[in-house]
């Protein structure tokens, strides 16, 4: 058995165990051990990936394994494999899943069902990142979507049912675009008469030979939009603020932290890598859309008063930045894009984790009704400031590394169009500082608005585990980014030549 399949098997085993357990203690123990095991596994994989690369293994994907599933009309394999980019994504996912499990310890209502759905979500996420077969990618992608409905609809807050339905339907709508694209790709993946394939590597070799360029344009647009919906690309981002605002803490963490990265990763892996010519031709359309996401999201965040809405719009802006950088199609910007995925994933997870903790105490997320939190709950307050600083790109934290790469890379394009959009996107950094500091100033340092808040307590142990885990990861990327940016960059070398 392939070691990568453990990423799917461990959650499945955990689901079975949870199904058999009834006491809350046992459920918590299972979640804590299982998710920590995944973090260890992810780091082990990263370590052995790097050692194998150093030892000279230069295949595009390592740890590959393939198992025939369907044959004949549809040739479907369960194929797994990872390159540097997937390793980074696996690290991110496992950390967020672990911290998310700890952050969900506060859930009292139907704990078992909650964790079952939570694990199904993580199966989808992990499965997607280890797949190198289009069919299983789509399969895991949709597996990750549907638990969101019940997680938000049942355990959420506010207009949760509306938000859950909106989110599910919009993302499924995206997958409708995606599916048509996948069919188009599949039926052009080999010479007529030859057996078609869903294998990403095979398709990458064949597609440009057997698919006429005007069809490539259509299917590139379809797949890019399909994944772009999940990456909160303007104008398909509207599910994101409502969904994030209504979701329970850990679900917001996982969703903004990992699931939205599925969108960017998919845009890159499926739309761009398979149809490089078309992505060259159509990049301008999507640069306009993603550029709009970047500054539109940032401006919207400035006028929100709900903490979760602020971070949801900030996610739109940052995820727009990811897609924007991918479309620049050079090594520096793309490395930045993946670093931004990591950095944004960790720091948004941290934000939502802290907001969940604060909301659990104050029962309000309106920043106008809160103040002086730094005095009342210093640990949470300090963590919030750190998250904010990472978000606005302070050197030494992960956000700076990512944004630096992105803007240096985008500025490499000398033409007017790219310059204008790069500068527009750059302005978002300033605006980010505005909305982050506004929250910090009002909520953490302002005068206490509500005397009841003075009685509130600070973080409990599991909240500390979740928050500190994320902060440490952010600091590691910020202080020592080279190993991870090299890992990503090396995998990009071969791909960048395509464009």
């Amino acid at each position, binding site marked *: 058995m392939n070691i990568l399949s453990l990423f799917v098997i461990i959650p499945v085993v955990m689901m079975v165990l949870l199904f058999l357990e009834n006491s809350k203690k046992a459920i918590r123990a299972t979640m804590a051990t299982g998710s920590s095991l995944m973090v260890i596994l992810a780091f082990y994989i990263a370590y052995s990936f790097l050692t194998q690369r150093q030892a000279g293994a230069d295949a595009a994907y390592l740890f590959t394994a393939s198992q025939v*599933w369907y044959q004949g*009309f549809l040739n479907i394999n369960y194929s797994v494999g990872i390159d540097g980019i997937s390793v980074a994504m696996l690290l991110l996912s496992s950390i967020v899943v672990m911290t998310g499990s700890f952050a969900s310890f506060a859930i009292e209502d139907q704990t078992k069902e909650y964790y079952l759905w939570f694990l199904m979500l993580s199966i989808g996420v992990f499965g997607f990142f280890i797949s190198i077969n289009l069919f299983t990618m789509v399969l895991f992608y*949709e*597996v990750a979507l549907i638990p969101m409905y019940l997680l938000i609809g*049942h355990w959420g807050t506010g207009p949760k049912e509306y938000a859950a*339905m909106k989110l599910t339907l919009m993302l499924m709508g995206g997958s409708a675009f995606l599916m048509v694209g996948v069919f188009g790709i599949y039926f052009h993946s080999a010479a007529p008469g030859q057996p078609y394939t869903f294998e990403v590597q095979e398709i990458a070799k064949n597609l440009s030979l057997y698919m006429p360029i005007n069809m490539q344009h259509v299917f590139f647009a379809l797949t890019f939009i399909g994944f772009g919906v999940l990456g909160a690309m303007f104008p398909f981002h509207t599910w994101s603020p409502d969904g994030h605002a209504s979701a329970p803490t850990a679900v917001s963490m996982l969703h903004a932290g990992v699931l939205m990265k599925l969108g960017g990763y998919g845009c890159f892996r499926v739309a761009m890598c398979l149809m490089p010519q078309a992505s060259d031709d159509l990049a301008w359309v999507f640069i306009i859309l993603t550029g709009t996401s970047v500054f539109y999201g940032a401006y919207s965040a400035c006028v929100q008063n709900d903490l979760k809405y602020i971070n949801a719009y900030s996610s739109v802006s940052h995820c727009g930045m990811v897609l924007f950088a991918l479309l620049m199609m050079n090594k520096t910007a793309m490395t930045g894009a993946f670093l931004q995925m990591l950095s944004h994933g960790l720091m948004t997870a941290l934000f939502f984790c802290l907001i969940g903790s604060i909301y659990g105490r104050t029962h309000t997320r309106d920043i106008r009704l809160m103040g002086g939190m730094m005095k009342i709950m210093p640990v949470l307050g300090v963590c919030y400031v750190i998250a904010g600083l990472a978000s606005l790109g302070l050197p030494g934290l992960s956000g700076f590394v990512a944004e630096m790469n992105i803007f240096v890379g985008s500025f490499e394009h000398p033409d007017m169009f790219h310059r204008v959009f790069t500068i527009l996107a750059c302005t978002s950094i300033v605006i980010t500082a505005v909305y982050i500091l506004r929250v910090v100033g009002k909520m953490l340092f302002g005068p206490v608005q509500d005397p009841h808040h003075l009685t509130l307590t600070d973080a409990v142990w599991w909240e500390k585990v979740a928050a500190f885990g994320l902060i440490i990861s952010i600091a590691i990327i910020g202080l020592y980014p080279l190993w991870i940016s090299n890992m990503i960059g090396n995998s990009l070398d071969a791909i960048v030549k395509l464009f």
Partner: protein
Amino acid sequence: MDYSQFLVMQHEVSLAGVLILLLLSDLILGEKSKRCFQPLAILIFALHTIYGFYLGCETLPSSNTAFAGMYLTSNIHMFLKNILDFGTLIVFFLSYEWNQTTNKENIAEFYLLTISTLFGMYLMISAGDFLLFYLGLETASIPMATLVALDKKKKVSAEAGAKYILTAAFSSGVMLFGISLIYGSCGGSLYFADVANNFAGEKFQVMAMIFFMAGLCFKISLVPFHLWTADTYEGAPTPVSAYLSVMSKGAAAFAFMCILWKAFSCSSAPEISESWKNIIWWIIVITITVGNIFAIRQNNLKRFLAFSSISQAGYIMLGVIAGTDNGMGSMIYYILVYLFTNLAAFGVISDIENQTGKVNRDDYNGLYSTNPRLAVVMMLAMFSLGGIPPFAGFFSKFFIFAAAAEQGEYLLVFLALANTIISLFYYLLVVKAMFINHSDTPIVTIKSDKMSLLALTVCTIGVVVLGFISPLYESIIHWSFGI
């Protein structure tokens, strides 16, 4: 006459044997031993099902005909008949409790009529000419009307039966008119092969074909011939609705496909099949959309499933438009998955209706807190109907869309996929009612009888594992044929 021809149709002979045996045993069994009838009927039918599977295991020659080509059979025909047998068996299990309580006086009628309709479907599937096909269709339709009206104490049931028989009679009249025109314009023969040789796609012939299609569209309840569906499903006893929604639809869709391919296409002149492909294209789009949009507004779950089954029929027809062996295989796989899924949904509804009389979606609020198992089964059925992985519905949808996409029907596939989003909305409404909504008066905890428990377990296992069993789909594809 060469009586050895009956050996070719062993499956039908076996079913006819079951029918006669049950008829006789109903006569012979006295009042006291009446309660034995139901187990006996299920047992005999189960034996027939097993025999059918045994027959289906042999590899038949590709053109196995009897009575000068009136009757055809092959592995794929066998397979579909076996699916129908299996589905009928599940329906029998589901209806066990209902027969014991509500339908006490008509137990024998229920079994006999159901098996007669099944016999009609067999003939429809295996028909090699229009005459046998028409006989099969009528044998499947007329007892069905009686089944729909079986609940004699309920007005809605009688109303549903009347609606069904009137529209069925009207549509089969239209169809018969079409067949007579085809007979006249295609060289005076009713054999599919002869019609295919003489069918040149002239306007008159196309008109005849459309009249013929109207009749079949009624059976599959494709828009605009769907108006009977909701009322009939709502009024009919729930096991009958379940039977109607899966078996009747599956058999008719397969027969429709065979006739379109065998009688109205010619492999050397593909432009002929273009004449109906356009019509089918529009029918699919309208059927899926109308079914979905009307399903959103339904509160009664039986009506809701009726409209959902209309849109599912549209998806089934995607296999027809492809016109390839992959299309046929995907369609049969779709029917198989749909059988498990829809029977699971109807099984839950039937259980709850039997014991509490509640069929509205609002009544299902908070079902998970009182009946977690039924709620989970219903949820799996809804997810599978909506095409959510890793449940079987995702695979069947993916395959049938792929079959259509293979022929370049990308726009159609896109419209169908966009429609799955609408359908997901109303399937999720049911899930929401059960898992998210709260109710002050939830449905009391129900203890299902053993038979329906067994049926629901089988269906649930089917929904969960069917997608992972790839040899099943591969062998269907291997047996199927195209234009």
